[in-house]
């Protein structure tokens, strides 16, 4: 592997956005047939480096060597015709076009097509989908699809091309284990064909399972490069965040006996049936299961986004009306949705505004006037707690790196003091260091007596904070793992089974 020819090389790349130095003298060397992991904390410059290598952004300094030629800037079409394909972190698809047209778009551009054929696009899509064992209607509009399906479409689009270097910027954040498995198979097949694959992931297990070589970025600089054998979990984490971070189970023993959230045999036809559990003050309950098992829908129903047809949900003994978000909020439920980038954030608005959007009423005085000083202090505290990498709190959220955007949404809800805090996949796309920080905040919230419901398929995370873990399968609650039994092995075994 290590003596395969280099297909793409970046040398001394520098890039600044205003005052933010995103990349500083970064080097990257990609060899044919390798799976190369680009690792780094949120905001370390991974996506920026990828955009520079795909011609989307121009570097301030440095050179790029591809297919024997050296250049200071690639064009998008140039990079595509050199066989570079990217699955962008934000997917960069077209919501208003059909799945087939999305998949065919880059192929058409690269082939300099003038007349297009819908039939050909559909056939191309079906062929690629067959390879990935997928079944998505090629005639559906992209905006009708779930986030997971969109991610799959982006993957299809990339491999529909004649690809030599495939960049995948966190391609699995919304996928189920099944789909990740198929993606891994496709990756090995591409690799066997000599395709170089560069992927970004914050999941250490994924990194070790997939990669041949690893390049670690920290604050825009390359701090470690090497074959996967030269790293272990600890040294990788050390390189990523400059310190150790253990994922150990820390749960407090003082859970109150008083029930706070009572979910009594709720059903929604076709989604889930007869879900019952009770959560107590100060308790952190994990809700897991494969994606599509109904775990997200249960959370949606508790918050009133999806109506339930029978059963009841109550907070402190007060019933919540089915399908009524307002009554859930007034009962004291706060919800961090899974589709954060479309549901939880105002991308063009300032970071500070987004952060206080949910807690704004607590920052006003009795007359309803906002207190700017209190707001500023609240914002600074959150930025600090979440260690957000921001230029200025007044910059728009869209200028943040993907993981920092996620953290803004989470921070917005952590600033509130609800009775019940429901979080759907809160640490997806968040780096190890910040993940630990978020989990610690959850523990603190629980210690204040707040009930936390954590929906996640990140097993180590569940084990690290949850008192109990509930498993949903095919829309039913099939298992409850009590505190003394919560281990990584137990949760993994019972949720996949």
């Amino acid at each position, binding site marked *: 592997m290590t003596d395969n020819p280099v297909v793409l090389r970046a040398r001394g790349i520098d890039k600044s956005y205003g005052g933010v130095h995103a990349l500083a003298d970064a080097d990257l060397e990609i060899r044919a047939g390798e799976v190369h992991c680009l690792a780094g904390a949120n905001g370390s410059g991974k996506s920026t480096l990828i955009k520079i290598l*795909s011609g*989307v952004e121009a570097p301030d300094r440095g050179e790029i060597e591809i297919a024997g030629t050296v250049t200071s800037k690639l064009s*998008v*079409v140039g990079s*595509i015709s050199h066989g570079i394909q*990217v699955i*962008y972190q934000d997917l*960069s*698809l*077209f*919501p*208003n*076009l059909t799945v087939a*047209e999305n998949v065919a*778009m*880059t192929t*058409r*551009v*690269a082939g300099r*097509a*003038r*007349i*297009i054929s819908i039939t050909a696009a559909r056939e191309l899509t079906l062929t690629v989908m067959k390879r990935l064992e997928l*079944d*998505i*209607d090629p005639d*559906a*509009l992209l*905006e*009708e*699809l*779930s986030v*997971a*399906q969109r991610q799959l479409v982006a993957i299809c689009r990339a491999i529909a091309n004649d690809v030599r270097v495939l960049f995948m910027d966190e391609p699995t954040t919304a996928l189920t284990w099944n789909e990740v498995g198929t993606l891994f198979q496709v990756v090995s097949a591409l690799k066997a064909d000599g395709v170089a694959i560069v992927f970004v992931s914050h999941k250490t297990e994924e990194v070790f399972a997939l990669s041949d070589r690893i390049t670690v970025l920290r604050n825009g600089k390359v701090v470690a490069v090497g074959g996967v054998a030269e790293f272990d979990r600890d040294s990788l984490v050390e390189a990523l965040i400059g310190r150790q971070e253990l994922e150990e189970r820390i749960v407090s023993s003082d859970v109150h006996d008083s029930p706070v959230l009572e979910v009594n045999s709720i059903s929604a036809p*076709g*989604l*889930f049936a007869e879900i019952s559990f009770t959560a107590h003050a100060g308790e952190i309950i994990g809700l897991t299961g494969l994606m*599509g*098992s*109904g775990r997200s*829908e249960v959370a*949606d129903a508790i918050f009133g986004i*999806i109506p339930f047809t029978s059963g009841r949900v109550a907070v402190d003994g007060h019933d919540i009306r089915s399908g009524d978000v307002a009554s859930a909020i007034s009962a004291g439920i706060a919800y961090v949705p899974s589709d954060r980038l479309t549901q939880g954030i105002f991308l063009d608005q300032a970071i500070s505004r987004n952060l206080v959007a949910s807690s704004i009423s607590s920052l006003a005085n009795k007359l309803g006037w906002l207190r700017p000083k209190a707001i500023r202090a609240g914002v600074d505290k959150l930025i600090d707690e979440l260690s957000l990498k921001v230029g200025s709190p007044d910059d728009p959220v869209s200028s943040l790196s993907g993981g920092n955007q996620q953290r803004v949404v989470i921070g917005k809800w952590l600033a509130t003091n609800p009775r019940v805090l429901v979080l759907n996949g809160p640490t997806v796309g968040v780096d190890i260091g910040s993940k630990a920080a978020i989990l610690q905040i959850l523990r603190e919230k629980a210690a204040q007596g707040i009930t936390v419901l954590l929906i996640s398929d990140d097993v180590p995370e569940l084990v690290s904070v949850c008192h109990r873990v509930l498993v949903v399968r*095919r*829309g039913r609650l099939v298992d409850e793992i009590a505190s003394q039994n919560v281990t990584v092995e137990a949760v993994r075994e019972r949720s996949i089974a």
Partner: protein
Amino acid sequence: MSVLTRTPQFHIARLRGRNNEGVLLGIIALLLLLIAMFSPGTLSPAMFADILRSSVVNMALALGVLLIIISGGIDVSFTAIAIFAAYSTVVLMRSIGLDNGILPFLAAAVIGALLGIINAVLVAGFKLQTLIATLGSQGIVRGALLAFVGSVYISSLPSALAQIGDARLTTIGGSAVSVLVIPVILLAVGLAVVLRKTMFGRSIYAIGGAPESARRAGIRVGRVQTVIYIAAGALSGFAGMVHVALVGHASPFELVGTELTVIAAVVIGGASDAGGRGSVQGVALGVVLLALIQNSLVRLGVPGFWHTAVVGVVILLGVAIQAQSRRRRSKRSTILESAVTA
């Protein structure tokens, strides 16, 4: 996954059409039914001929506006461009003594295209917001027309041009249908094909839907914008000349002020104000619907100033229907996601 099993909702969605074309057709049918019920006399072949006549110019203008709205922009300069192109062509013809039936249409289209370059430079070059850019160019073009070309009313057109304007394709119920319907239909069909079947057409939708994604997919956003603003200019110029030929005189004060009607037709025809959506079929239905409404208002004896208000209401309705169907689409996405469970 159950997306491939076609549910009743799916068929309803197909009937409704991607851009609500089905809904529009339904509304037109309903309106005709109402007219037939309450005033049977009006529903005559002559009324269709009237509607066709009042739709020709609007349709030609709407085609250009459609291009720009699909790309995610908005154009308010097209009527100014139309009348500038047509009026100065007539002035030019008179001053050099040219008398021809076809050339003036081509000349007006060329002048329109040249004026479209102004918008292209502002939008693709200076990256101005399209509303601001076209508001500016509207002012420039109108000012230039009155200052440099003239402001006099020209009551008689060169004879070959006047003849084309009077030439009838056929008569329906005693009302004439102009031959100029033909080129407009040809342009509409041509544009429909370009939008559906060419990479250029699909790029316009791509840019309107997600400009940054378009750039990342290798689409030359600036170039596509340049071409559509020039094409829209050419279509406006041509439409201006059709207007002049049909009314039989040239006045620099006409057309300007009808932007609202044309934009309304495009928007209720399913082109989204947010971009990335819209079709020629939808626009045709939108134009006809508006013409039908205005025609009925006239027949009902509703004073003219109410017409503008009605057009405003129609725009709002169109936008509301769009917002509604956007919401429906995103709802469908949760249903699709949950179908995975079953």
